[in-house]
């Protein structure tokens, strides 16, 4: 349960940051893709730390 919420929340944060960066920089899919990938990486790192 803990691993699942960690992964989900990290990807969620990445998605939110990506969407708002895109809105700010008008670079529609680019920032979203990069931030989702970084968010997934952060999620797996958070799981592996435990």
């Amino acid at each position, binding site marked *: *349960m*803990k691993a699942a*919420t*960690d992964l*989900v*929340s*990290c990807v*969620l*944060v*990445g998605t939110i*940051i990506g969407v708002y960066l895109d809105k700010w920089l008008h670079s529609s899919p680019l920032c979203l893709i990069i931030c989702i990938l*970084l*968010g997934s*990486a*952060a*999620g797996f*790192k*958070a799981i592996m730390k435990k």
Partner: protein
Amino acid sequence: MTQHHNPLSQFELKTILPLDIAGLDFSFTNSGLLMFVAIALISAFFALSLRKASIVPSRLQVSAEMLYRMITDMMKQNVGEGGKPFIPIIFTTFMFIMTCNLLGMLPYSFTATSHIIVTFTLAIIIFLLVTIVGFAKHGLHFLSLFKPDGTPAWLAPLLIVIELFTFLARPISLSLRLAANMIAGHVMLKVMAGFVITLMVVLKPLPIPLMVILIGFEIFVAILQAYIFTILSCVYLNDAVNLH
């Protein structure tokens, strides 16, 4: 029938006292009522148990002191001496979450902690506390939290962004875990109870012993989730108070 046996209908907000201030909905709902009941119960418990504090304590006083000792020990183990000023807020959070979870176990009650907005508010308080304490204690040096020890220089920009994401995910992860556990447990109870109605007559008694076990398990989960929320707050506070 389907309307009354919907497993999610127990999480519906019902307005008790409609209140509208400047176009915003400030209505007093059953969620707010249960939170007030929780606060009243906690206050009454501590007022009653510590009214006649004596050296040879009564049973109530022992239970109140045990709860307090548990949190102070947890703070001492996880944060150390620097955690002393934060015992009140951690203790309050623990008592509030535990009482809300346990109140949700009563029949016809409502689980305030099953709504993400409630748990997220609690989590964002902890998150802001950790951030403010970190910057107040260490200044800009607190930002070294985002750079793990021994990171090669070429990998640093990537790792800093990843660490920043994990840091920002903390309140979401904290609130999601508590709310998800509460929703999952209560929905499972309701579905099991629904089997008693929908199964054929011969099989009707089968889910009942299972319900008894599950209710015991749910009470365990209610206390465990409050404990996990507090111990993770302690771990996060440790980052802010004793920066490696």
